[in-house]
């Protein structure tokens, strides 16, 4: 048996009203708003954020594999799952893999994780999915897409079981990007909707229902990915489901988040589910995957863990299209790129990614970065590594107008933080209004892409006002 032990979602704090996009270009507008990843966010950082939600209260050492799914992996050559595993402080003797090239990668990874657990090669596998797909300026894609992430921990046991995987493959040119393309492309969508989406999803879902012996009345929710706000409803109708039985895609508030969409929808459905519920999940992309989730028990409440709903509600509206264009780096700008070194990134990864400091055995002072000699009592080499908290209080700060970078605007808040449980650090604050920064303010740490020094993604911690806190 394979079960969902835990799950979590992540939505960037920034949203843009779609009317801002239609006004910017003088093109028709779609109602609602979309989520927009911050300038310092990418699929890796959003996958990590979702991973932290999913892993709240769970020992990372219990996980045997991390699968990363995205059509927008920040690296073409170099694994992303390894970054996620390091930041989540997973063991090193685990299996990590990236699943990509199709928004179906999320359920491909889910199926691979279930197969691994069923075969006995792993007891627990964490699947993380995230996307921030590139939309061509002055097209509807800008309004249709959204950014986000989701994570599911699959395990031999858990409150909800997963079973009955059915897949189909289908070669219909739906949305695509060649390796040389900057933006998502699509042909007239009718072909893909009818002969791709509808055909594949129906085939996979029907095969699943038949195999598991469930009819439309047995299904409490149909969780169907969809690139637009209507296709999933039409699919539900085709499968004999009533409107309330079809899980909303979140299109009006988020847009189509691509790879993580189906898992974000499943997370929202599980938040509302009760024991005995059966969820039929189907995901499209060059074919389709379908599986059944049966809820047996309520998922345990973990203090501080945030639901998809909390992430939906905690938002900041971008003032205009320019802000979006700046975040997406749609204008080519030459900025100062700090120096970096893969050597230092590797040597310090336990501090920089897994966020370890040290505690002095003599005086007990928790300190960061990890020194050889205690900063407090001067004792040499008597320090134990200690995991630092991802929460702290602002001790002092500045709003720096001289530091440039990939920002919507300066100033950049730089804050000295006292971390819960000890340790002091010095970080940039992101996803905030600089006017809100104050001494004594509580903040949470968030892993972001700090800069591109030495031509690689230099991930490091920033802090942000606590979301939903």
């Amino acid at each position, binding site marked *: 048996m394979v079960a969902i032990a835990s799950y979590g979602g992540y939505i960037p704090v920034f949203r843009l009203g779609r009317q801002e996009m239609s006004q910017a270009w003088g093109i028709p507008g779609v109602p609602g708003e979309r989520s927009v990843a911050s300038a310092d966010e990418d699929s890796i950082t959003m996958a990590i954020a979702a991973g932290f939600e999913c892993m709240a209260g769970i020992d990372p050492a219990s996980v045997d594999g991390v699968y990363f799914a995205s059509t927008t992996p920040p690296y073409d050559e170099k694994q992303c799952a390894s970054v996620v595993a390091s930041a989540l402080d997973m063991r090193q003797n685990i299996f990590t893999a990236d699943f990509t090239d199709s928004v179906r990668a999320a359920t491909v990874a889910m199926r691979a994780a279930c197969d691994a657990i069923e075969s006995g090669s792993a007891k627990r596998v964490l699947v993380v999915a995230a996307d921030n797909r590139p939309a061509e300026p002055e097209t509807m894609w800008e309004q249709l897409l959204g950014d986000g992430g989701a994570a599911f921990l699959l395990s031999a046991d858990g409150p909800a079981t997963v079973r009955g995987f059915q897949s189909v493959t289908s070669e219909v040119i739906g949305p695509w990007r060649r390796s040389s393309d900057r933006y998502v492309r699509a042909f007239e969508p009718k072909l893909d909707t009818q002969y791709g989406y509808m055909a594949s999803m129906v085939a996979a879902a029907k095969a699943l229902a038949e195999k598991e012996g469930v009819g439309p009345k047995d299904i409490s929710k149909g969780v169907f990915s969809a690139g637009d706000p209507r296709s999933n409803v039409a699919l539900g109708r085709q499968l004999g489901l009533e409107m309330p039985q079809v899980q909303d895609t979140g299109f009006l508030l988020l847009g189509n988040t691509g790879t993580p969409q189906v898992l974000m929808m499943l997370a929202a459905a599980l938040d509302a589910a009760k024991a005995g519920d059966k969820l039929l999940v189907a995901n499209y992309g060059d074919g389709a995957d379908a599986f059944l989730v049966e809820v047996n028990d309520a998922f345990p409440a973990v203090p501080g863990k945030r639901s998809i709903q909390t992430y939906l509600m905690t938002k900041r509206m971008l003032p205009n299209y320019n802000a979006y264009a700046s975040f997406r780096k749609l204008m080519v700008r030459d900025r*100062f790129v*700090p*120096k*970096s*070194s893969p050597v*230092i*990134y590797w040597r*310090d990864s336990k501090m*920089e990614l897994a966020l370890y400091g040290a505690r002095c055995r003599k005086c007990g*002072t*928790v*300190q*960061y*970065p990890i020194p050889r000699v205690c*900063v*407090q009592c001067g004792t040499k080499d008597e320090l134990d590594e200690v995991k630092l908290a991802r929460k702290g209080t602002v*001790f*002092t*700060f*500045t*709003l*720096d*107008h*001289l*530091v440039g970078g990939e920002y919507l605007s300066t*100033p950049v808040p*730089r804050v*000295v933080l*006292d971390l819960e449980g*000890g*340790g*002091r*650090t*010095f970080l940039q604050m992101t996803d905030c209004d*600089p006017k809100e920064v104050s*001494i004594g303010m509580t903040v949470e740490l968030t892993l972001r892409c*700090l*800069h591109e*020094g*030495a031509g690689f993604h*230099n991930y*490091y911690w920033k802090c942000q006002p606590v979301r939903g806190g």
Partner: protein
Amino acid sequence: MPGIKDRVAIAGVGCTKFGELWEKDQEDLLVEAVYEALDDAGITPQDIEAAWVGVLYHFTGISGGTFAEPMKLFGKPVTRVENFCASGMDAFRNACFAVAAGAYDIVVACGVEKLLDQGSSGLPMEGGHPVMGGVSAPGLFALAATRAFHEWGWTREDLARVAVKNHKNGVAHPKAHFRRAITMDDALKAPMIAWPLGRFDCCAMSDGSAALVITRPEIAKTMKHKDDYVVVKANALAVDSTYPMYRPGYNWLGFPATKKAAAVAYEEAGIKDPVKEIGFAEVHDCFTSTELFNMGDLGFVDPPKAAEAVRDGMTEVEGAIPINPSGGLKCFGHPIGATGCRMLYEVTKQLQGRADGLQVKDPVLGMAHNLGGPGSVCSLTILGRHD
């Protein structure tokens, strides 16, 4: 600690005009400052036995060649000194020790920096850790100012008052970068650089060089300034944490390096009551808030009361302890390696009664305070008239 009190004399001083010296390079600046010091001492380049040159940035110069090459003085012992913004005064310190030890009779300490060749919008942010560093100089010092606003109730007006005072002093100084009085309004309405520091709270990016001829008192007695040479009463250097922002419990109210250096220097010079005994001080006002912190750290005033003391005129040229009668870094700017030597140039001329700008009335002792890093390196010198 025996120290070097009364064992080292300054026999000559030189200083270029500070400013945006686009048409000059580091060679022009260093040669001008050193030749002025040599003329002042009445000696020739060949009389220099050894030299120390303070420089921070590699683009101004690396190695002892920073001095030897422009001076075309080859084959002599020259050392480049780097110790953050206190590089200049640390060059002086090492030169003093060589003379006090009897290793040489006549040496030169100088400093130079050519910041404008790198552009003019803030010090280059280079070196350091790829992700744990990366903050501007104003950003670092602002962390302390924000804390003092919170703990001590200092305000942006308190900072502006320091800028107004120093700009007033600088008007008279022919070598200052800025010779323009400003109003409170000018200071308060200037663009923000790093909250709570606005443009007039920050010292400027400037070019410059300064130099000193150093010898022992018995030799100074035979030289051009035999009647009014100046002696070193104390010199102290303290190096604190380079990364105070990571230091648990660090309170950001003032700078420990200054407190430590002051304690050592006062003991060496035998000073009990600095405000009464020291005639004036050139202190490191890289930012207006730094000048306020310095007043507390140097023991001039109860630290939270520094803002009040400035308001009451304590640090005006006619006040109980004039601070930065030259106009300070606020008016000279801060060509890093040059600043410590420029302060010593100023203190020497004040003690000799020949200040270029505003002359403090009859000082016997004067202080030069040079602070580097985020308050992490302090070099402090007390000079006095010879007995």
